[in-house]
């Protein structure tokens, strides 16, 4: 019995079938979390899009469930994080078990003073539902088209033409850009004749959503060689609505069709949960891959999310990686489309997100390898780490059940300015911005990241700076500083954590990108230094 009621979205006959041909700036293919987030981010920057999906329901099955802190910060910028946190299960502690005993626990956010938690577990169908509600707040900018299936693509030199099939017939849509957000079995990727490169694993895993009443705490629990599952790995996550995610390693010889039958799944689940009553809500059998396209930008066709790169789930880098793609891509596309930056800015999406994808692939592959040793000697090393973990502290951290998703550092890449040597520590260029508790001009408590605003901005510590036109400014003042600067956004660094986390000194300034990454920082800022850093961050902007 499915708990979540999937609503069907209405199909609307496209105007284009009746001869109304238009051209849109952006055609997004695939209305999953990545496509929806991209549509919203573009809309917030004034860019129109058409978002097509061959389906008319949200995700069947919970699928991506672990949403990281960085992703929550991005969703907050997009206006959906509050709903996700209200509904979702917050967690930060993970425990590792070997056979029948705990060997290690870790805390993914061992400090206070952040708006968002380390992780929120929420089924993908809820995330999509909230994103669709948010997308509907932009009726003039986002055209959501369900049961619209792309069947052909042609790059026309100055754009892309897509052939789209609907229940009422076929039509052609022209766009300046097409973004493929259509997942691991991407039609767009297939139509362009592109393939992934990288590593596949033969191991099969059973993934199940199980509805049951249980008192396990909201923690990620991972077992190596548990007594209840024939010596193979198991993973347990808590989700809303009394749904529990259980992942069970099946071995390379498992037959997916056999394993997916409910009569075969039930005894496996029963072995994990014991005598408590349960119902199986959704089941899938996966083999994992850690692979990607060689590049994500193909002229006017751009790939994001699982259409571009695919990882095994250990470490929660799939959905989170895709949302970070959107964070990186949307402002660059908007800048190019709005003629604020040259087209070569889009090449930096490749530069920065290939790095992100490679980091995710590396970490997911290593975790999967640790769970599935390939040779006898690999198995010996893996088993001895597990054995040593019982008595030797160092071995516990070497146990790899997944290194959880972190944003990657972009410091040495082309949009960032070299760091000012006058700083010591803190956030160098290429870092995602850190959060901190602040108070606004009315004394109301809030959070630094929520107050940064959209677009490029300068974060100034202690006093306002002379900033270029079109760039915002946020002034951060220490609690003891009495000066106030009329006409500027001012925040009081309520616990001194902003200054500490940024490594800030009085009078310094940070140039922050629209995706809340540091582009440059200066101990002694001047307008000219900031202007030059801004030009670099826009790949040499159009005047």
């Amino acid at each position: 019995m499915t708990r979540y009621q999937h609503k069907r979205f209405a199909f609307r006959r496209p105007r284009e079938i009746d001869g109304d041909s238009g051209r849109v700036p952006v055609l997004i293919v695939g209305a999953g979390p990545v496509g929806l987030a991209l549509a919203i981010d573009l809309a917030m920057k004034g860019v129109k899009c058409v978002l097509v999906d061959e389906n008319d329901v949200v995700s069947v099955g919970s699928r991506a469930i672990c949403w990281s802190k960085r992703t929550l910060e991005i969703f907050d910028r997009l206006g959906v994080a509050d709903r996700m946190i209200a509904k979702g299960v917050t967690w930060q502690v993970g425990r590792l078990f070997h056979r029948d005993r705990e060997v290690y626990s870790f805390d993914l956010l061992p400090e206070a003073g952040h708006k968002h938690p380390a992780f929120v577990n929420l089924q993908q169908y809820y995330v999509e539902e909230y994103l669709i509600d948010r997308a509907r707040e932009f009726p003039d900018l986002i055209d959501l088209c369900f049961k619209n299936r792309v069947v052909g693509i042609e790059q026309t030199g100055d754009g892309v033409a897509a052939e789209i099939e609907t229940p009422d017939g076929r039509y052609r849509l022209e766009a300046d850009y097409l973004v493929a957000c259509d997942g691991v079995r991407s039609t767009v990727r297939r139509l362009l004749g592109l393939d992934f490169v990288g590593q596949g694993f033969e191991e099969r895993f059973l993934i199940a959503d199980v509805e049951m009443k249980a008192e396990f705490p909201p923690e990620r629990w991972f077992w190596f060689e548990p007594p209840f599952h024939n010596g193979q790995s198991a993973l347990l996550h808590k989700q809303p609505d009394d749904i529990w995610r259980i992942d069970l390693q099946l071995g390379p010889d498992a037959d997916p069709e056999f394993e997916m039958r409910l009569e075969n799944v039930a005894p496996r689940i029963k072995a994990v949960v014991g005598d408590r009553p349960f119902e199986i809500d959704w089941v899938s059998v996966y083999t994992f891959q850690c692979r990607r396209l060689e590049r994500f930008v193909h002229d006017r066709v751009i790939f994001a999310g699982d259409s571009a790169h695919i990882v095994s789930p250990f470490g929660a880098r799939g959905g989170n990686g895709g949302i970070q793609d959107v964070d990186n891509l949307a402002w660059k596309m908007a800048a190019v489309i709005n003629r604020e930056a040259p087209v070569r800015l889009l090449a930096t999406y490749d530069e920065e997100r290939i790095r992100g994808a490679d980091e995710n692939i590396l970490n997911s592959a290593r975790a999967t390898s640790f769970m599935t040793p390939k040779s006898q000697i690999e198995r010996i090393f893996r088993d001895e780490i597990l054995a040593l973990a019982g008595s030797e502290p160092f071995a516990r951290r070497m146990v790899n059940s997944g290194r959880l998703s972190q944003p990657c550092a972009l410091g040495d890449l082309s949009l960032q300015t070299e760091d000012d040597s006058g700083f010591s520590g803190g956030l160098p260029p290429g870092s995602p911005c850190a959060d901190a508790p602040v108070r606004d001009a009315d004394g109301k408590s809030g959070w630094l990241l929520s107050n940064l605003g959209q677009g490029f901005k300068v974060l100034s510590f202690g006093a306002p700076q002379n900033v270029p036109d079109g760039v915002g400014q946020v002034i951060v003042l220490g609690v003891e500083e009495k000066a106030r600067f009329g006409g500027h956004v001012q925040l009081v660094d309520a616990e001194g954590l902003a200054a500490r986390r940024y490594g800030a000194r009085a009078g310094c300034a940070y140039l922050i990108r629209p995706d809340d990454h540091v582009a440059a920082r200066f101990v002694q800022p001047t307008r000219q230094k900031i202007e030059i850093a801004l030009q670099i961050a826009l790949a040499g902007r159009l005047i």
Partner: protein
Amino acid sequence: MSKAKLDTSYRLGQQGDDVYAALIEAHSGLSDEASARLNARLVLLLANQIGDGGIIIEAILRARGQLAG
């Protein structure tokens, strides 16, 4: 690649023979598989003691024979 940090000059003082004897003694009576397990544990313990990933990986490559000289 950064310059070599692994030191392969003799560093065992008066204890070289003691170390060798202890190694051999540790394996006495073990099957081949148990010996492989013991070696793996020892590699992990000693790698952690060295604590410098660059040196450890250089040692691994040198043992594998991929470094020149």
